[in-house]
């Protein structure tokens, strides 16, 4: 988290992350190219480059898309999530090499502009066998391009988190386009079933991970809190919440995090303003609620990021009766100071 924009706020973790991406990419490319050269001596450089980059990009895409649900399932994956955009931008650079060389190879030096050629050479849009699969890859490339150039927090703040997140959710459309690009393209040429098997395993793994993570989220949201009085809902016992940690409750479709810190309970909206991270899974550090995804911070009593930051989340009333925690789901305006509920010594024990 920084108060001013840097191209990349390098730290040790980021450097390790990027070096690992680089090392894995080099390892894969070297394996693919060397084996192709040995076992396919009639290879051409362009084709090997196109194939090596395309297969690597598809692998990185699967790894990138799996990080989200893996982190929802096990928080130990958070280090992969924090710099996920580096993985995405790396993938885009690799796809750009694939796309550029493909357009150069298949569409340049013809009687029309290469981009006109891309959309006018094969126009069998109504046929699965003849479908112009390259157009699908081109549209996926455009989505990845938009995601890569807006990956910096500068764009997140200027586009607004909602627009930014919506734009970046198009990665799932891009993934679908990539799968169809492969299935309607090279898989119709190659005779070895390995390609289709790998593609199917990848797709099913991603779908399964998303379903597992999604089901867990839904189960959390579906907990019904029956006891209600004066607008308050009985949500848990105070001992259920660890010090400087929170529990998340979904009331009236609103996710609220109740934090225990400094002898008090505070309730704030669960959704981080940065990238919709789960504040309820964060921790109070230096007196601030710290988002587990990217470390954005908020003061528990008013939901405001400490100056000079300007992010704000809604706050809620919370009260204690005995050891019972009662939460009022009516949100106060973002950044509204609330007194919190004092935990007496007896309750805390």
């Amino acid at each position, binding site marked *: 988290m920084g108060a001013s924009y840097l191209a990349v706020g390098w730290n040790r973790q980021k450097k390790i992350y990027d070096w690992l991406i680089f090392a894995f990419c080099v390892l894969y490319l070297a394996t693919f190219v060397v*084996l192709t050269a040995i076992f396919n001596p009639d290879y*051409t450089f362009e084709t090997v480059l196109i194939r090596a980059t395309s297969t690597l990009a598809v692998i990185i895409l699967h790894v990138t898309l799996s990080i989200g649900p893996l982190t929802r399932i096990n928080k130990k994956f958070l280090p*992969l999530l924090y710099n996920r955009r580096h993985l995405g931008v790396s993938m885009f650079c690799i796809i750009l090499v694939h796309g550029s060389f493909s357009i150069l190879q298949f569409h340049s030096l013809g009687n029309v502009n290469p981009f006109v050629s891309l959309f006018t050479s094969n126009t069998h849009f109504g046929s699965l066998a003849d479908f112009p699969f390259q157009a699908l890859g081109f549209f996926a490339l455009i989505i990845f391009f938009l995601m890569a150039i807006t990956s910096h927090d500068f764009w997140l703040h200027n586009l607004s988190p909602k627009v930014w997140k919506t734009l970046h959710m198009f990665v799932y459309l891009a993934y679908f386009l990539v799968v169809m690009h492969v299935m309607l393209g090279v898989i119709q040429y190659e005779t070895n079933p*390995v390609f289709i098997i*790998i593609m199917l395993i990848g797709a099913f793994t991603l779908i399964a991970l998303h379903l597992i993570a999604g089901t867990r989220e839904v189960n959390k949201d579906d907990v019904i809190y029956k006891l209600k009085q004066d607008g308050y809902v009985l949500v848990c016992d105070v001992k259920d919440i660890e010090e400087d940690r929170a529990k998340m409750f979904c009331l009236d479709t609103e996710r609220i995090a109740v934090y225990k810190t400094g002898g008090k309970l505070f309730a704030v909206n669960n959704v981080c303003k940065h990238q919709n991270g789960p504040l309820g899974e964060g921790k109070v550090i230096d007196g601030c609620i710290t988002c587990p995804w990217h470390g954005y911070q908020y003061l528990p009593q008013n939901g405001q990021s400490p100056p000079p930051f300007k992010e704000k989340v809604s706050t809620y009333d919370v009260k204690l009766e005995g050891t019972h925690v009662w939460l009022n789901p009516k949100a106060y305006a973002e950044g509204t100071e609330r007194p919190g509920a004092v935990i007496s010594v007896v309750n805390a024990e």
Partner: protein
Amino acid sequence: MNNEEFYIGWMGKAPKSFAAWIRKYLIVLLPVIIVLGVLLALSQKKFGTGTFEFGTLTEVKGIYFNKPVPTIKVVDGKDIWGNENYITVPLIGFGKHGADGVIADLEKEKNISFEGKEITLKGTLLYNDGKLLMQVDANDKPLVNVSGANINSVGLQKIKELGIIDVKGEIVDPKCFFGVMKPGEGKPHKDCAIRCILGGMPPVLKVTDEKGNQNYYLIVGANGEKMNEAVQDYVATPVEINARAVAYGDWVVLYVHPNGLQHYSYIREHFSTSIASCMAACIK
């Protein structure tokens, strides 16, 4: 998870348990990446054996013919009776273009027709599976020499009527297929083949027999007219052709009858009757 352990990306170091978990993940990921690289590399179809002598210019002397497609007939030794053998070298242009434009410009520059004349051309050779082609590029100043007088070319084309034939195969562009691209056929190459053919490259029908041997036919219209635009929808997909076959020495040219070019479906040909009878039985 220990309450003290909390991961924050902007801090210099990850907590020990997080770092240990990621190390385990990477140890699993590493062999997965290597195995995928090995599997994908070894599962590719064999690359074709075609050669494109990129960057090497070769001078070829022969008799030029414009029809049915631009070619030069090159002497290739003599038969047992002492008659000269010729091989036919179709000409193609730079990039995704035919050779017609280059030849027409050269004829205009010299103010003569090359038809039936002995010419020496400089260009880039490409060859595969017994077929030789030559790329002529205006930037290479391809015309080395042209004889003033017509050669007695009667009989040189060795034209032989082979009758009406029906063949099944795939339409490819000869430049990519015989050397420039690997693969120069099939779905991945479809757009490129279409662009090459629309750019003037003579379409070629690749026919694979039951033994896996391949034969190649140049395709023109019933009256020898170009079919480049007419074949656009049929490139890199199974087709069947009904045509008059004429051998021009070592190349066979198909003069495709009107409506003689159709999409071909193995399933439709072999199972349509069964499917129809099955459906009829079901309806009944």
